[in-house]
């Protein structure tokens, strides 16, 4: 149990945001004890919900004066324990900061508060023929502030890139309440250090973004979605290589392995994938309608060449939703098989996928664990899923050991320990797999420039102890 908030501090916070928006009741704090990674649980000392930028500044100042650590939190959908209130922190939630401050269709820009939901922005932009491209799987619930903190990805990154490409400006509150106005689409990016780019993905350790300026894109005119069914995972991976080799650039290339297909088909979300298939591949093209049928035909030929048993093409939106169903539900349905699911996240160079997948399955077998795979094959971003029962301490230890081996295999193949979920509290121990002491020290030094007193999201990202130099 964390220490209660000193009454003097609580009173000052209530004065800033109003009594209803400071949560100290232990029962209500339980909602905030973990994020999407429920393996870690730690209730915060308090949760403060400011209404706007000015209130964030005042709240941060009050906490700074009391030397109380601050963790910013959006919807809590993160998968690395980044929003966990470690070190007796107070959570500053952005749930009330949901305004779209400006939607500038002429310049294809939006300025939003951090609590705006990812999908909410695309919806607001739609009447202008625009949308916000990065689309993490949690897009209907995750906030743009969280996306900025995590540099979120999603299934369409292969063509469109990740969050950092779309963030053009930020208003940031530092740990002592100072405010920085960074970047902005009106300013020449080549005239300055890319402080916006440095901030994106800093997992709440540098500052709290209270205003976010992002670029919007024109809605693609058309979409074509294919589903290839393969006997083996290797065949599906070969099809991906062939599609890329053809010079095609799909918006998404997603693989669902046999184990995941079986789980989906046995659930209420059955998508009609054949349960004896070794893998399914979703290929999606978007853009100018006129070019899409030709691209889809070439991709279909690549699938058949690679040994696809069947290739389905969606002809309407309902069909498209159905083809995606197996991919989108592949995580949720695992609850049927085991009480706990660990979704891992790593990236490898795409051509190493077949070999790395093979080695991951071997690791699973060696530990006697149920491992399945769903992944963004286009950009080599893997999400191995490990099923287990937390109540069984022995299995839990095996899951941890297997996870570490999987990470080591990915790094050895030229990859990295996280492609889109972030390091948070969960992967700090793996950071030494990818970085040496000098790199970690440089990262700590850069963090300390932004956050000199260490009050912002302490105990995250870098392993303990890293001394800056």
């Amino acid at each position, binding site marked *: 149990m964390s220490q209660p908030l000193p009454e003097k501090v609580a009173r000052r916070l209530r004065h800033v945001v109003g009594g209803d928006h400071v949560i100290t009741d232990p029962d209500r704090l339980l909602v905030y004890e973990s994020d999407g990674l429920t393996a870690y649980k730690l209730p915060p000392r308090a949760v403060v919900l400011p209404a706007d930028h000015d209130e964030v500044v005042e709240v941060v100042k009050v906490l700074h004066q009391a030397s109380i650590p601050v963790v910013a939190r959006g919807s809590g959908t993160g998968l690395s324990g980044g929003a966990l209130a470690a070190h007796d922190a107070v959570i500053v939630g952005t749930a009330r900061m949901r305004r779209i401050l400006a939607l*500038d269709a*002429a*310049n294809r820009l939006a300025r939003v508060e951090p609590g705006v939901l990812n999908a909410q922005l695309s919806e607001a932009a739609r009447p202008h023929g625009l949308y916000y491209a990065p689309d993490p799987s949690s897009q209907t619930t995750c906030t743009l502030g969280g996306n900025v903190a995590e540099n979120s*990805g999603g299934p369409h990154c292969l063509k469109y890139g990740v969050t*950092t490409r779309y963030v053009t400006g930020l208003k940031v509150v530092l740990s002592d309440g100072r405010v*920085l*106005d960074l970047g902005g*689409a*009106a300013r020449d*990016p*080549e*005239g*300055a*250090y*890319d*402080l916006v780019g*440095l901030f*994106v*993905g*800093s997992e709440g350790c*540098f500052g709290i973004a209270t205003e976010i300026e992002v670029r919007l*894109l*024109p809605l693609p*005119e058309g979409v074509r979605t294919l589903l290839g069914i393969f006997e083996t995972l290797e065949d599906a991976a070969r099809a991906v290589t062939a599609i*890329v*080799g053809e*010079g*095609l*650039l799909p918006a998404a290339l997603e693989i669902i392995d046999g184990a995941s297909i079986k789980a989906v088909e046995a659930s209420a979300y059955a998508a009609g994938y054949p349960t004896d298939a070794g893998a399914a591949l979703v290929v999606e093209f978007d*853009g*100018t*309608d*006129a*070019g899409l049928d030709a*691209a889809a035909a070439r991709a279909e030929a690549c699938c058949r060449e690679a040994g696809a048993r069947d290739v389905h093409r969606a002809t309407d939106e309902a069909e498209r939703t159905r083809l995606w169903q197996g991919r989108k539900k592949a995580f949720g349905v695992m609850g049927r098989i085991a009480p706990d699911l660990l979704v891992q996240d790593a*990236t*490898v*160079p*795409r051509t190493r996928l077949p070999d790395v997948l093979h080695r991951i399955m071997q690791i699973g077998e060696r530990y006697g664990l149920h491992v399945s795979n769903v992944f963004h094959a286009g*950009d080599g*971003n893997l999400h191995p899923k490990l099923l287990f029962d937390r109540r069984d301490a022995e299995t839990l230890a095996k899951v941890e050991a297997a996870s570490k081996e999987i990470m080591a295999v990915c790094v050895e193949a030229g*990859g*990295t320990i*996280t*492609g889109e979920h*972030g*390091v948070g509290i969960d992967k700090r121990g*793996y*950071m030494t797999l*990818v*970085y040496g002491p*000098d*790199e970690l020290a*440089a990262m700590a030094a*850069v963090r300390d*420039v*932004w956050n000199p007193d260490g009050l912002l999201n302490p105990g995250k*990202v*870098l392993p303990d102890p890293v001394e*800056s130099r």
Partner: protein
Amino acid sequence: MSTAVDAIRASVDPRAVAPEHELERWSVGDVVPAAVLTPGSVDEVSALLRAAHDVRVLPLGGRTHLAAIRPREPFVVLSTRRLTGVEIYEPGDLTLTATAGSTFSSLSETLAAHGQWLPCDPPRAPERTLGGMVATGAASPLWAGYGALRDHVLGVTIVTGDGRVLKLGGRVMKNVAGFDLVRLIVGSRGTLGVVVSASVRVFPTPAVDRSLVLRAPRAEALLTAARAVGTAPVMPASAVLAEPEPGGGAALVVRLHGAEGAVDADQSRLERHVGTTFEPVEGAAALSLSHHMRDHAFEQPMVLRLAALPSRLADVMGVARTLPHAAILADVMAGRVRVGMPAVPPRAVESVRACRDAMRGLGGTLVVEAAPADVAAAAAPPPDETTGLVSGLRASLDPRGTLWNPGAFSGGRHGPIGVHE
């Protein structure tokens, strides 16, 4: 002073030290370097920087982007020209890792053999080096269709001002392991570390590269069409407005990339939206046109870059027009205008200041790409709330101030400020 230079000279293999008679050839901004060193390995770059005390080091690649730099003496040139070669290129990965001194033209050749390219087209692109492009950010109008170079750099190896070798990022497309120092390095102009190698994301070469051209006697007559391109439902690979054309007059050039049918359809949608018919150019003619546009208004004694939101393009052009005899290249999608002047105008300091203030009034910025030292200095903005942060970042990666060279940033957000001034 000579001992400082002797120490740095002694830190590398004698073959990496250029003979005395060549030094003048390496002058930067009329300042002659005390030594020119061409290290042949990352270890040698590191040894050199460890040995650098009381001397500035200026890393140089293709020397295409130096016109506003005035090194402080004594300074030593670190040329990356011996650090060449592709380290890892697996076409199926759509990524390439190469050492910093590799020229863009040699890398483009390697990529073209596999039907791939790096969609980045800054002025004098072929002579640029990979390290130089990463260090300068290599602004290019192709950002509209593909993202900017900073979006394509997946990882860098740098040597910090005090000689630490840092491998930052990686060579995969999605990577959120740790803080994104790669972004900090891209566009930092060698002031935080010497880029010794970089991994970039590459793309399939488009089947069709079509330029759509619209001409008029003056750029102003094309502004309405240019703005309409910026709001069209079709995202072009790039769109620029240039004046004067080789034969006089102005041209709006919109590049469309994609499969044959898609480019045809994009052209008609664009023409419908803009309300006019463009002249389509493809093949060799399109290539030579895009090269012309790429280098337009760049190689001039004085070059300024004005930036504001795209919807302010007409106002930005108005500011550009206050400069005498200007050659103009506007990136229509970004709202950025490069202005090249054939000579340094009289009262240049005053006109740069006036332009800077006018751009601020538009919510934008002015960056000096090339100018005499006093003019470049005049554009420097006053310290702002980011000044302390920037000083801290410099101190953490270049604690002795070895890599700080005045003029590396002129104008824009932060000029010659910080702990080393």
